[in-house]
């Protein structure tokens, strides 16, 4: 069988090599070459999407090459409804992020190589079925991201890059320990020294205390990635100081490594611990929703504002995930993708404005809608998409999460609903200050509206956001079975029963017997 997923990971790597091999005297080739190199994995991802069997719960397009029998390590890849759209999202965002990197003049080649390696790492994270390989990809991502922030970032980039790496490395240490421990336990089970195969780990029958410790080890790493309050303070610095493409990828894809990790590993491998800790996790999610949104309101820097809004939106995903209902989790997976599109788009747009004015301070603007009407219109569209306006993708995710969470954590779902109000406040207030009123600063008077290249970058995102908002069915049909499988696993291994919304039909035994 055609090794689609290996090719998918390999394409950006080959692209990086090709970009690196370009002759020094032809710098003008770097940008088109990198763009082309990022288009190939997109094509491959679409091929995967096309050939994905809807209605299947398990992994598809599985590849398995064993490296060591005794250690149970191998190149094992597979894709299911949970990872499918994260892969597609990654493949969609990278060409756009690279296309938006036209203004990178310093060490362009190294920049593009970093981007492509980053893409390979992220794709690898989502399709790995071997936990050691997963961990390797999880860590590989760190390096190009560190470079992107540290070299091509702005102002306080050194601090932001270091903070990002330290936070993440701290979590990774726990993750690696957890993975090794789990692999040894699994090895015991299958009669080897160790096994890192995800599929071997499904039937371990771990004691609940072991589950709890492993949940914590994995959970800390993922909580930092999401990020969860109070482990979130790397995010605003990293997002703000990163170059545009870095912010797009950070918010669009990188954070989802955390929410994906919770769903793929914690919920699936440690079901009892997940049930025990569900409410705690959901509370942390809701704190993130409210706290992130509240702090976003008062940010004087528009990029920081969007960064904090990500904390709020990711909180919704966590709430949905740990509501432990089919609807909640499906909404969460959907929201991962939707947030990638809307927040990715917002960072792209902020980058376009930054390219013109070289400031992100909200008070440096005002009245921009008069000088850049198209830009203002697109920004407003994205603001409403991000605020969860119905008929756009953000609504489908949040609505499904909220309706799905209410049956198990009603109080939290109601409080989370306030996040929807706060989103309107921080987005519309920022829009008001940047775009409306008279043009107060003379340096803004001559700003040029979006050019064709920039319109071409945001147009696909607009189309996807509308399409997923109006007709999310094809996507939910593919997510659904895999999510159901997660819930069924939890129900099979614990005494938890996911509530099914609807009237409770009480049939007394004697009445039933008479019929």
């Amino acid at each position: 069988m055609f090794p689609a997923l290996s090719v998918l990971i390999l394409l950006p790597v080959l692209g990086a090599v090709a970009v690196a091999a370009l002759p020094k005297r032809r710098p003008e080739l770097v940008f088109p070459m990198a763009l082309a190199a990022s288009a190939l994995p997109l094509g491959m991802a679409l091929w995967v999407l096309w050939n994905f069997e809807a209605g299947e719960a398990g992994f598809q397009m599985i590849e398995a090459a064993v490296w060591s029998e005794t250690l149970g390590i191998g190149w094992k890849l597979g894709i299911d409804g949970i990872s499918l759209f994260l892969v597609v999202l990654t493949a969609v965002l990278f060409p756009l992020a690279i296309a938006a990197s036209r203004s990178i003049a310093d060490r362009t080649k190294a920049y593009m190589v970093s981007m492509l390696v980053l893409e390979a790492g992220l794709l690898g994270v989502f399709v790995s079925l071997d936990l050691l390989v997963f961990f390797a990809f999880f860590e590989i991502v760190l390096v190009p991201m560190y470079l992107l922030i540290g070299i091509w970032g702005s102002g306080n980039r050194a601090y932001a890059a270091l903070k990002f790496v330290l936070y993440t490395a701290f979590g990774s240490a726990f993750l690696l320990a957890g993975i090794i421990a789990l692999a040894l336990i699994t090895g015991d089970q299958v009669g080897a020294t160790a096994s890192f195969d995800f599929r071997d780990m499904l039937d371990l029958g771990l004691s609940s205390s072991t589950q709890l410790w492993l949940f914590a080890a994995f959970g800390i790493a993922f909580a930092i990635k999401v990020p969860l309050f109070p482990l979130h303070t790397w995010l605003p610095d990293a997002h703000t100081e990163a170059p545009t493409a870095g912010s797009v990828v950070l918010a669009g894809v990188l954070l989802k490594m955390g929410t994906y990790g919770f769903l793929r590993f914690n919920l699936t491998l440690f079901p009892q611990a997940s049930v025990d800790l569900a409410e705690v996790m959901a509370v942390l999610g809701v704190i993130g929703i409210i706290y992130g949104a509240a702090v976003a309101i008062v940010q004087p820097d528009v990029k920081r504002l969007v960064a904090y809004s990500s904390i709020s939106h990711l909180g919704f995903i966590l709430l949905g995930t740990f509501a432990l209902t089919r609807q909640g989790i499906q909404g969460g997976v959907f929201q991962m993708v939707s947030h990638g599109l809307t927040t990715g788009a917002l960072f792209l747009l902020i980058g376009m404005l930054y390219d013109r004015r070289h400031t992100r301070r909200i008070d440096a603007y005002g009245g921009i809608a008069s000088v850049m009407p198209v830009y203002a219109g697109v920004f407003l569209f994205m603001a409403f998409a991000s605020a969860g306006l119905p008929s756009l993708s953000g609504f489908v995710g949040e609505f499904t999460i909220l309706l799905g969470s209410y049956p198990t954590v009603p109080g939290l779902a109601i409080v989370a609903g306030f996040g929807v109000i706060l989103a309107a406040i921080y987005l519309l207030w920022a829009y008001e200050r940047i775009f409306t009123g008279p043009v107060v600063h003379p340096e803004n008077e001559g700003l040029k509206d979006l050019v064709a290249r920039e319109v071409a970058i945001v147009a696909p995102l607009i189309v996807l956001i509308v399409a997923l908002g109006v007709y999310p069915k094809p996507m939910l049909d593919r997510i659904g079975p895999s999510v159901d499988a997660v819930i069924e696993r939890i129900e099979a291994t614990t005494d938890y029963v996911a509530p099914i919304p609807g009237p409770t039909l009480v049939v007394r035994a004697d009445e039933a017997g008479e019929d």
Partner: protein
Amino acid sequence: MTDLIWLLIALPAVGAAVLVFLGRRLGEPGAGWLATVTVAASFAFAVVSGVGFVGGTVHPATVELFSWIPALGVDATLLWDPLAVTMTLVVTGVGALIHLYAIGYMHGDPRFGRFFAYLNLFIASMLTLVLAGNFAVMFVGWELVGLSSYLLISFWFERPSAAAAGKKAFIVNRIGDWGFLVALMVIFAAFGTLDFGTVFGSAPEVLSVGTATVITLLLLVGATGKSAQLPLYVWLPDAMEGPTPVSALIHAATMVTAGVYMIARTGALFELAPVSQAIVATVGVLTALFAATIAISQRDIKRVLAYSTISQIGYMIFGVGMAAYTAGMFHLVTHAFFKALLFLGAGSVIHALGGEQDMRKMGGLRTVMPVTFWTMVIAWLAISGVFPLAGFWSKDEILGAAFAKGGLYTGLWAIGLFTAFLTAFYMTRWLAMTFLGEPRWSDDVHPHESPWVMTGPLVILAFASTFAGALNTPWRLALERFLEPSFELVTQSLPPESIGVVAALAGLSLVLVVLGIVVAWRRYTTAELPAEAGRFWYVTLHGYWVDDLYGRVFVLPGKALSAWFAAVLDGTVIDGIVNGLGRTVRGFGAAMSTLQSGWVRSYAAVFGGGVLVLLVWTLVHGGVI
């Protein structure tokens, strides 16, 4: 025919889409005509496919378009029944007239095409709301009308006050939407579906009184936002920053009545929660009184009408709250006519005076603008409730139903009756200050009658405001019979059965109305405007300072808390710990190493140490070793 009712939404939606991209190229007046034609076409189609309900040849039907959110089992479904028909006809009928009017009113605006794109978007959104066959689709329309409202209020975004008003409207509406959203959570958990048919049909078996009360009170929160009722009415007066056709269409005739429609639509749930019904009715009648007292002292020609709208919607909410659904809907329809007319008349005046909105600088316009004046006379009589114009019939049907219900509702009836007196007073003041007495405008202003595209809709609406009462006279309850299929699941509150009592009640309210007119007439048709000094005028002119109160109680503390989160909790506490840890680790790494120190080393140190400790611990604990 019924299968095609999605066309009602699609026509203006396509119009909006075309105008967003081609509005500038179509220009003036082409863009306006395109928009007007799409709405008129929707109106015509609604008439054709709805007329069958009169003779009973068409029956209520649900149309399933496509599966929308399979995770929740939610489909895109529309419901075509007499209630939906009524709303659709009001929205598209009044909507088409206002589109036409706006072609004249927006003449010369540089964003002419964009304006009509938004106006069409509003019609499509509103029709989504009223045609929805389940709560989710209704919520889509509910929020999208909020979007259109935002876009149109802040249409002249160069004006900071317009931009702020748009934002305020959307945010306050979202507070109401939160209530709606939570209601949907409870409904979904209780029924497992959001489908109107299933929910309403099985509600008596599924819902306890407690749950029904919770759901309906949450729906009321939604209604108070969208329909500008206490305590969420504060956005509507500011919404007058929008162009006047917008005020007429969205903030008077149609969108703000969405809450009334929603309560009527969900009557089967309110039926199970008498406490909620009493609360809704009380909120409605108190809003009617409260807003009327503010309307009395306003000096801006549009702000009087804005508070009047809040007050009149209060009547409607009062009506549907006590299960007088037909009466509430009846008043919704007649109000759509005369309030749209009043706003368009106000727009005509503002247009003629070059943008002046202060009534103290008007007066004496009756001879200069005869068409506007005479249509405004009709509107004034209609809203005041003078026999036999439209407002008389619909308002008195609500009051009659309250009287017949007795108990608490007798008290509410008395408040409603007194509000009718206030209404007659402030509307007479409005008419007199604008059109009667001596001219008070400055010499450089040259008022003129508006062009036919503007006066034409005035005349048509004046006609409707005069005769719409015939829709549901006490002896020929046409509207009630028409709406019957939509209210099969509820028991309606009706006015007293005896025509004598009805006539006596009507006579009583007529006396109060005439009294209000006479008092105001004597006061405001004098050569000089009376001084409006004194505590009452001062307090009501400032709307009881409710905006300031909200600012102090919610906005300022909210911002302060956010700022504290950002600066202290995030900045000092968490980052303080993080940076402190970073320094410690760095020192630790330096201490361990005789070579250089740096982040790579601290990374390695944290990493290695962490791995080791955890590995050993987990292995021991996990029973592997």
